[in-house]
Structures are given as structure tokens and as C-alpha cells.
């Protein structure tokens, strides 16, 4: 009798621990996916959408380095950004992390006159003609105005097309410019503060967030 009582208590303890363990998993899981989860009942089904942002080179795109730049040079590269997910997106931004020669990243201050590389982003509702840089069969929209690399350390928002529908694409022109500026080299010696012989790596990060959550009644 005593033994049976003990066995019952052990079973009760195990059952309680099992319930508690299941609760932990349930609560933690619910928290993680609370914004995305949907339940299905009866004959209705509901699924969680997903976002997927892809970038495909149009022409050279991001596939090769840019070299031999001088003040006044402009290099246009092209890429197609696609929201490949099932959800619409918003808050499309571009962040560029730049590493390398400081004078190419940040405008000069306190007497230094160097002007950093700028990047601008345009979109074309038609097709970019790579040979000329013209937008054929559509119009050009300025997404991000020419901005020094240092400013891109903070993500810059797309102005004309901050949102993308599912499977929507943006045909982008990335405009890299070395602003017109002058430096005098004397007897082969470049100035102490110079943009000459500089190199910078630009890591582009396009970013999108999910569309605003909606409440529907049906």
C-alpha cells in the first residue's frame, strides 16, 4: 500500500514536470512567432508570409571593382532588386559600409578640401539601356540623392519607391561619383590630405521590412 502510494506520487511529479516542460516550449514559441503565426480551423487555412530580397546584376553590377577614378568621374552600375517573398514590403533602405581611404569616405573639414565619393540611386520604370545609361520606355525616379559614403553608414531610405509588392522588382542605377575637386601635386609628391591613390570597399546592404500588419474582418 505504502509502495503504491509512493509510485502514484512519482507519477504525478513526472506528469507535472511534463506539463511544465511543454508550457515552456509553448510560451517561448508563441513569443517568437507571435507576429507571424496564424491558426487554422475548420476548412479555412492561413499561412505566414515571408520576405525575401534579392539583387541581380544587370550588366556588370556588383561583380567587378571600379578602378582608375579621377575627380569628375561617374560610374553607373545596374542591379535589379526583387522582393521575392510572398509579403509586400516597406521601408526599403540602402546602407553602405565603407572601409579604406578616409578621404574617399568623408568630406574634408578644418581646411582639408577633399570631397568624398558619393553614391546616388535611381530607378527606371522601363529598362535601363546600359550602353547609354538611358531609361528606355519608362521614367527615371530618384530614390536616393547623391550622398557621401560616410552618410551611408546610416541606412538611407528610398524616396520614390519605399514599398514593394510581392514579386515586384526595382531596376536600379547605382551612381558612384568622385566629385570634381583639385589637388596640386608638387614634384611628384601628393598633398598630405589627398584622394589620390585611394581605395575604398563599399559593402551595400539593401533592406526591407514587412508591410504594416493588418486586421481583416471577413
Amino acid at each position: 500500500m505504502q509502495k503504491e502510494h509512493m509510485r502514484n506520487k512519482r507519477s504525478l511529479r513526472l506528469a507535472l514536470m511534463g506539463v511544465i516542460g511543454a508550457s515552456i516550449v509553448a510560451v517561448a514559441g508563441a513569443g517568437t512567432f507571435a507576429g507571424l503565426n496564424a491558426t487554422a480551423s475548420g476548412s479555412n487555412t492561413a499561412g505566414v508570409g515571408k520576405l525575401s530580397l534579392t539583387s541581380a546584376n544587370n550588366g556588370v553590377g556588383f561583380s567587378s571593382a571600379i578602378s582608375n577614378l579621377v575627380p569628375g568621374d561617374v560610374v553607373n552600375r545596374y542591379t535589379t532588386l526583387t522582393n521575392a517573398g510572398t509579403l509586400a514590403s516597406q521601408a526599403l533602405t540602402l546602407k553602405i559600409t565603407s572601409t579604406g581611404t578616409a578621404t574617399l569616405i568623408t568630406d574634408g573639414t578644418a581646411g582639408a578640401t577633399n570631397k568624398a565619393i558619393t553614391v546616388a540611386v535611381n530607378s527606371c520604370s522601363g529598362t535601363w539601356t546600359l550602353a547609354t545609361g538611358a531609361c528606355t520606355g519608362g521614367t527615371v525616379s530618384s530614390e536616393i540623392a547623391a550622398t557621401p559614403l560616410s552618410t551611408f553608414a546610416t541606412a538611407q531610405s528610398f524616396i520614390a519607391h519605399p514599398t514593394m509588392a510581392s514579386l515586384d522588382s526595382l531596376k536600379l542605377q547605382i551612381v558612384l561619383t568622385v566629385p570634381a575637386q583639385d589637388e596640386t601635386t608638387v614634384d611628384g609628391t601628393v598633398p598630405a590630405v589627398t584622394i589620390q591613390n585611394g581605395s575604398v570597399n563599399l559593402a551595400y546592404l539593401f533592406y526591407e521590412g514587412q508591410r504594416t500588419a493588418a486586421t481583416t474582418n471577413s
Partner: protein
Amino acid sequence: MKRRLTTNSFVAFTLAIAVALFAIPAQPAGAAIKANSAKSYSAATLSWGAYFADPGTTPSPAPYVANWITSNSTQLDYLDLINSGGMALIGATFAIATITQGGNQEGVPKITFESCVGGTWNQTANTCSGTITNLGNQANGSLSPTLSVAKGARLSVRLSVTKTSRTSWSSTISVKTDRTDFRAGTTTNS
């Protein structure tokens, strides 16, 4: 005794689980879905610059100093303009400062600069194997001739002065290159 210990352990375990339930940092209910796409490339700039040096030599960049003597005949000096930058030069500014031994600039003769395009000056025969181009003359001041010197190339130059009654004097010649001395900016699409 043994039984009480087991019961206490169970209570402690249960309490710990209860605390853990509140402590687990669950994602906020409104957690958003995000997506990104990362790409990169590098961008590099060129340099521009030039300096004078004795023919065939490649010293450290520095101003060139030509020393002259008192003579009734024409004096000559030969030098190379070295393009030390990363691209072709289409011009340069020669800054010339000529002084006598006593530091006087009065009455110093003008120096004539002549390049030998497509060839070199033969110092022995005083002949140019290419085409002679007059770059101008100056005693004190600057000259800004049009040039064509490829990246890493040299332009053979002859300096000449006419007779002078000055005693010992010298000319220091610096080469300045700025934005006007190389190609204009271009726009490329690729």
C-alpha cells in the same frame, strides 16, 4: 526525513521552472519580418604628378636645380620630365626660381625649355631623335606647356640660356600638376 527532502526538491524545481517562464526573453508579439540583400565592390582612385630628373636617372622626387656659370656662349642642360602618376599627363606647370649667388634676381637670363617628342636629346651631338617642341622660356615665374606624357614615361627636355655676365647663378625648377593636367572626368555605364 528522506521523503521530506524529495518533496522540498520538487517544490524548488517547480519554483525554478516558474521563474524561468517569466525570465525567458520571448520575442515581442509584433516582431517584424525583415529581409536584406548584400553586395560589395571596391573603388580606387589614381594619382597624378611629375618631376624633373637627370636623364636616365630615377631619384626621389624633388625640385630640379640647374647651375649656370658665366659664359659668353649658350649653355645647355638636359633633363627628363618623369610622369610619376598613375595616368597620362596632358600638361604641367613649371615653376622657375632663378637667383644669383648673392640671392639677386635682377638680370638673370631666361631659360628656354624644349622637349624632344618621340625621342631623346643626344647630349653629345645636341640633337633630338624625335621632334623638337618649344615649351616656352622664363627666368622667374611659371610656364604651363601642353604636354603628352604617358603613365610612367619620360619626356626628354633641353634647357638653354644665352650668354650672361652674371657670375654663378642657379635655377630651381619645380613641376606642379593639378586637375587641368590630366583627362577630364567621364561617365561610364556598365
